[in-house]
């Protein structure tokens, strides 16, 4: 039996993008408490509302390494896949009833005011063979 609040629960990934200035707030002693406080509160609210499935923050993009196979050969490159103004800083998977509800949670993410949040439905598993 399914609980009453969500009729057809769907999972969405909320991809949290930050600008470089926002990311730097992580490490600046003057801004770090506010930065982490906001994220802790946000994740706490997701958990408290019972919609949080999983999620993680990511190390900054200078730690990224990108791999691709070209003509059977490995190509390993320093840095992220694409050099953009905003970088993926973390993600959460939420289970909610609709896209509208997922957008509400996305708007509350601290990086929604200092970057953006991309919301995508999680692909359901392929049908059993």
């Amino acid at each position, binding site marked *: 039996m399914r609980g*009453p*609040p969500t009729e057809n629960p769907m999972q969405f990934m909320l991809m949290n993008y930050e600008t470089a200035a926002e990311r730097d707030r992580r490490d600046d002693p003057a801004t770090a408490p*506010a930065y982490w*406080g*906001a994220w*802790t*509160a*946000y*994740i*706490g*609210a*997701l958990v*408290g*509302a*019972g*919609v949080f499935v999983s999620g993680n923050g990511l190390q900054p993009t200078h730690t990224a390494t990108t791999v691709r196979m070209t003509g059977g050969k490995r190509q390993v490159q320093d840095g992220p896949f694409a050099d953009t103004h905003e970088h993926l800083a973390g993600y959460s998977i939420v289970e909610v009833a609709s*896209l*509208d509800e997922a*957008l*509400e*949670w996305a*708007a*509350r993410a*601290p990086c*929604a*005011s*200092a970057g953006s949040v991309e919301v995508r439905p999680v692909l359901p598993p392929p049908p059993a063979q």
Partner: protein
Amino acid sequence: MSDAAQAAERVARECYGRLVALLAWQWRDLAAAEDALSEAFAAALRTWPVQGLPTSPEAWLMAAAKRRLLHEARHTRLTRNPNVTALFDDDTAAPTTEAVPDVRLRLMFVCAHPALAENVRAPLMLQAVLGLDAQAIASAFLVSPTAMAQRLVRAKAKIREAGLRFDPPEARELPGRLAAVLEAIYAAYTLGRQGPDTPAGDLREEALFLAHLIVQLLPAQAEAQGLLALLLHAEARRGAQFDSGGRFVPLAAQDPAVWNAALIDEAEAALWAASRLRQPGAFQIEAAIQSAHAQRRATGQTPWHAIAQLYASLAQHHPGLGARTGYAVALAETGDSASAMAVLDGLPPEAVAAYAPYWVARAHVMRLAQAPGRAEALQRAIGLTEDLRLRDFLATQGG
């Protein structure tokens, strides 16, 4: 930008709603009226730079849009339709400013038709009457632009296909539809307040304009007066809500001298007019609560007992999370923290799980009651708050 483009933009801003309302009224088809009007604007941008600005750009656009509608009608052989032939009769008539507000409002009443899905009524009014595009409306309602566009298209198809009556609602229908219109105006004002940089920035002024208009047209509707009073009270405090550094200032910390006295007087007059009509309603109670807060300007005191009574009445007749949360805060302010906590604890947990004002109120009541658990409630409130300025304010309340 060329003069012609500037003129077209100005006319679009000033009379889009009027023009589309008039056309939709004559044509009974909102979607067709909007298409014809956008074609007319495109034609204006082509011809005005060459031929010069017409003496009345509004009349020019109206005539161009009508020609477009007639052309379409001939194409689809609808010319025997009396609505179409009526267009021939007054083809040269420029829209008169007198009939205009009435038409805008009547179109809003069509958008409030009970046959239309509830979640499309307010967006449809914003699009039809204020000329906002689907993208801006989607942002304001936090819905994906594709989904909002689909909702609007479906609603307009229904208006056309189901032949929704464009007549003013009859007296017995009026209260039901008026409620939806007032809700939409209130939603437009609230959305407009959420920040000057949203695409919905002008919504605030439009909402105030419509609230005034509806009172002029339906002066005997107490809830219309109540809504006007509520919006004017909110507007009076707009300048006090953020300090010079852009930091949020809660109502209790605002200096009443910063409030706009003229707007408060106007709000009080509207509320007085409403009370004489003896038709109680939710907007009037909410306006009365704001009126009570405004008393601090004269007396230096907030009458919390009176406010608690008003919230009790609101929660009884128009139950909702907002009313009961407000009731709890007012009770706590009168010193009755135990009852306040009982009210908050009585709300269904799944309903308040994602409702930020509840957690703000809970943290506040717990502070007044010196009860444990305040920090957790404050954390929940911060995590649920979208507005950065509000979140920053809540974060300073931890000590």
